[in-house]
């Protein structure tokens, strides 16, 4: 049985990196995976799993998604109605929020109530962007299972999501305060960090996602 993964290609960067990392993660668990880099609603509706990457500006990413005809409708159908396992990465995760505040207000998909606002550590000495390897503190979730002690992953961002419902926080990181590192809700999962750039820990997270049956 081939598992089809729709990796949404909407002009918001690093689709190839995500594709390679997913392919490697599938190999690690001996999963026969077919990865489609696509913005075709048919592909999205037919996929077993969906990954939404994203780097850059919130508003640009949202506009990119909106400019691909039928993509948001297909994502809504597949993820919200058909319950397909979904992974959002970085801005792809942030788009799940209701609102983004990067350079003005932009409505997000609103699937996980929350706001994406500038990361403001209490210690003004801390550099922004939050860039590099930081430890995450996961809650119990299949996608973050078995990461070993003190898992570290690669972050690069200046904005962070806050969740209206604490139960949607899957992991946090510390950077002059506690911030959201990952979100979860039903069949949706999102990471602020880049699993596709987080070496072995990232591979494990992607493998977990590919095995996850919400």
């Amino acid at each position: 049985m081939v598992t089809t993964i729709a990796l949404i290609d909407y002009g918001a960067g690093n689709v190839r990196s995500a594709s390679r990392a997913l392919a490697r993660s599938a190999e690690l668990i001996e999963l026969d995976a077919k990865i489609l880099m696509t913005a075709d609603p048919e592909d999205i509706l037919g996929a077993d799993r969906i990954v939404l990457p994203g780097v850059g500006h919130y508003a640009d990413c949202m506009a990119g998604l909106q400019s691909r005809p039928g993509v948001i409708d297909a994502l809504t159908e597949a993820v919200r109605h058909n319950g397909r396992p979904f992974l959002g990465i970085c801005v792809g995760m942030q788009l799940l929020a209701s609102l983004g505040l990067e350079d003005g207000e932009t409505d997000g998909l609103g699937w996980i109530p929350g706001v994406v606002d500038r990361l403001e550590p209490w210690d003004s000495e801390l550099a922004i962007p939050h860039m590099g390897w930081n430890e995450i503190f996961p809650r119990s979730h299949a996608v973050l299972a078995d990461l070993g002690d003190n898992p570290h992953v690669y972050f690069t961002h200046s904005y962070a999501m806050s969740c209206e419902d604490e139960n949607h926080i899957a992991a946090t990181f510390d950077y002059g305060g506690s911030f959201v590192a990952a979100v979860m809700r039903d069949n949706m999962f999102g990471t602020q960090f880049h699993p596709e750039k987080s070496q072995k820990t990232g591979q494990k997270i992607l493998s977990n996602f590919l095995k996850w049956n919400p």
Partner: protein
Amino acid sequence: MLKTRIIPCLDVKDGRTVKGVNFVDLRDAGDPVALAKAYDEQGADELCFLDITASHEGRASMLDVIERTADQCFMPVTVGGGVRSPDDMVTLLAAGADKCAINTAAVTDPDLVRACARKVGSQAVVIAIDARREGDGWGVYTHGGRKSSGRNAVEFAKLVAELGAGEILLTSMDRDGTKSGFDIALTKAITDAVSIPVIASGGAGGVDDFAPAILEGGANAVLAASIFHFGEATIAQARSALNDAGAPVRPLP
């Protein structure tokens, strides 16, 4: 908290590493992809490729190097050298780079920093500042450190940070190649002036040189080339030295 990053840097010309590289158990030390993979396995936190090619053909082979690296190494990669426009950045990022470093072009036209940040996001825009002591301060140099730009390094760092740079790769041209340690005063002057992350570079002669750049200089990352390539130090030794000195690195899984 964020951990100190150790970044090996490879100079690449026409798709091959240029500085002599003396690496244990490597069949082809001239292949940047093989080196990248070795550093990945050693636990490097990031990689930096500096493309010193002049020709178009060489540029194409750099893209091939980036693609092949990204196929095998699932870690952040910065590429510098010859980046002159937002479209150059888009091309490099599409090939698999995560960040692009601009040097000369940003000095000539600082507005380019804004245009690049707008196009690809600040997180992908690294400004490489080659600084050399000039009187009481430091000046910005271009063309591989040969040409003075007339700009003050601290002022220039502030400017590019305001324009949307996501990170500064700071190289001391006075120390580069001397193996006498990083220029801590320069590093501190820049990290005090900006709130974006700074990578210290130039002068690493041994693993004990790294911690002062972080603890005294305030840098977020250290970059070195020859001490790693010639096998004088391993990434593991650099990691232990930083940890022991009180600049924590990430534990490897």
